[in-house]
């Protein structure tokens, strides 16, 4: 549905997007991930024909963004970072205006306006001025305008930025429910969002493509060796950590045992094994030694760790700061 080849955007002094290539299949939700200033918005703006690329090519639904921008624009719904709302317009009036811009008219236009209002849960603010809407509603009206002409491709730039947790969940569910009919690219710097909503991830950093894969593959790839976390407690409260460590290291297949934390009297060990599936042996060993096994879980790497690993340590502080701000 979307093909991007060696896409590059240079500004006077900086290169915002540097030879990025990827493909998106029909009906997929793709997460476009990267720290602030990585080039997400610039890439999206090139896909929506807002910015022309310096070099390289991008096609949407088979149409080139430079050669046939009008055809591309007809097939794209776009929600910029700040929803493009006119504060002096009422919701339904605004959606009608956008619908007309996108080529709808007559009865068709009215049914689409009703449909998107219903779909995006903004029916109850239809006659309110956009300038008076709360952030959550503004975002949903923004989504409603993006899908008004039933586009093949939806491009959403940080659709959940600035929303409260409840609104974030609602917006994510809404986006997921749209996936069947539309191909969706959404950009974000919030990792759980990608884990929860997307099937595929494209990670860029400083304008360069770092990784593109499915969420599961990416996790598997970064994980490498199997590792599990176990929380162990002594029967009568006391526990000799070095004894525990020794006992655990004796289990067959385990390559490394690391004591993690003991805050709030919880003793957590991270255990790495080369061959996987040591959890049974591990559990038995702990119980037979007379200790309590409070927790045993696979230490799946979160996308966050993958992300930091892929984008390098330098990006870490900025990314954490950005997450903190959310």
């Amino acid at each position, binding site marked *: 549905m979307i093909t991007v080849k060696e896409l590059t955007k240079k500004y006077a002094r900086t290169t915002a997007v540097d030879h990025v290539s990827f493909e998106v299949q029909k009906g997929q939700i793709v997460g476009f991930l990267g720290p602030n200033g990585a080039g997400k918005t610039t890439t999206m*703006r090139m896909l*929506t*024909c*807002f*910015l*022309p690329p310096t070099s390289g090519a991008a096609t949407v639904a088979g149409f080139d963004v430079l050669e046939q921008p*009008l*055809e591309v*624009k*007809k097939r*794209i719904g*776009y929600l*910029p*970072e*700040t929803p*493009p*709302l*006119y*504060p*002096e*317009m009422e919701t339904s009036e605004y959606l009608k*205006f*956008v619908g*007309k*811009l*996108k*080529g709808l*008219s007559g009865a068709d236009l009215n049914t689409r306006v009703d449909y998107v209002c219903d779909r995006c849960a903004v029916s109850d603010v239809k006659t309110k001025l956009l300038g008076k809407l709360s952030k959550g509603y503004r975002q949903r009206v923004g989504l409603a*305008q993006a899908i008004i002409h039933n586009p093949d491709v939806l491009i959403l730039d940080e659709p959940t930025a600035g929303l409260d947790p409840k609104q974030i969940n609602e917006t994510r569910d809404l986006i997921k429910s749209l996936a069947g009919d539309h191909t969706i690219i959404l950009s974000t710097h919030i990792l759980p969002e990608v884990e929860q909503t997307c099937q595929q991830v494209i990670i860029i950093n400083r304008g360069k493509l770092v990784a593109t894969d499915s969420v599961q593959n990416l996790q598997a790839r970064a994980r490498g060796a199997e590792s599990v976390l176990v929380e162990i407690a002594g029967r009568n409260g006391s526990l000799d950590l070095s004894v525990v460590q020794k006992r655990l290291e004796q289990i067959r297949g385990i390559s490394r045992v690391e004591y993690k934390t003991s805050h709030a009297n919880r003793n957590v060990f991270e255990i790495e094994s080369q061959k996987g599936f040591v959890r049974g042996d591990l559990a038995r060993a702990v119980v037979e030694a007379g200790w309590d096994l409070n927790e045993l879980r696979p230490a799946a790497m979160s996308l966050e760790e993958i992300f930091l690993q892929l984008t390098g340590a330098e990006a870490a502080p900025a990314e954490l700061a950005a997450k903190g701000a959310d």
Partner: protein
Amino acid sequence: MRNILTIWRKEMRSYFVSPIAYLLLTMFALIFGFFFWNALGYFVMMGMESQMRGQTFPMNLNEEVIRPLLSNASVIGLFFIPMITMRLFAEEKRTGTIELLVTSPIRDTEIIIGKWLAALTLYATMLLFTALNFAFLFKYGNPDWKPLAIGYLGLLLQAGGLLAIGTFISTLTKNQIIAGAATFGVCLLLWVLEWVSGYETAAWAKVLAYMSVITHFESFAKGVLDLKDAIFYLTLIFVGLFFTSRSMESLRWRS
């Protein structure tokens, strides 16, 4: 065409839901009304004087009231044009709605013409108030309507050119005040350029005077439709809108 109309409607609506349109219309009506009252007062006084002296040379409403008033309207217009055009693009750039327009399947020229036509429509609405004043002349006197119609055509053409320049300037900034101030400066300059012809007759002075929007209005005020002057204004409109479309294009390269 349909897209132009969509943009035009949206612009008209935002003029008339905000106080902008009402403020401009009220101020224009007040100021022009004052000019009209003065012109008429002077005309009546002259009439009485000539009667007292027993002179009976004919007094002409078209020559002595309508013509100077049309010139006045054109100058008052210069002050109002920046206020009409300053928000056209600057506002959209500031709020980010320009992204919606530019990523919609319509052409830049349709956006520009729609916006410019809306600005011209608001200006024409202001002129309606002058027509109200002139209506009194028709009720109590018998001026010729044809020179008046040509005068209005001239006003619209002149405003069209200046509004096109204002539209262009509005694409250059996100700040409405800057757009308004710059447009006002350019309008004022295009007005006073004509003054050099008062003391200088060299070729450069003629060129400067030719560039002045006021020079070309004189024939319209007289009620004469001079093709040369009409073409000057049409060129101004075309150049202004052309620069606007170039600027919109470059907006994408720069932003």
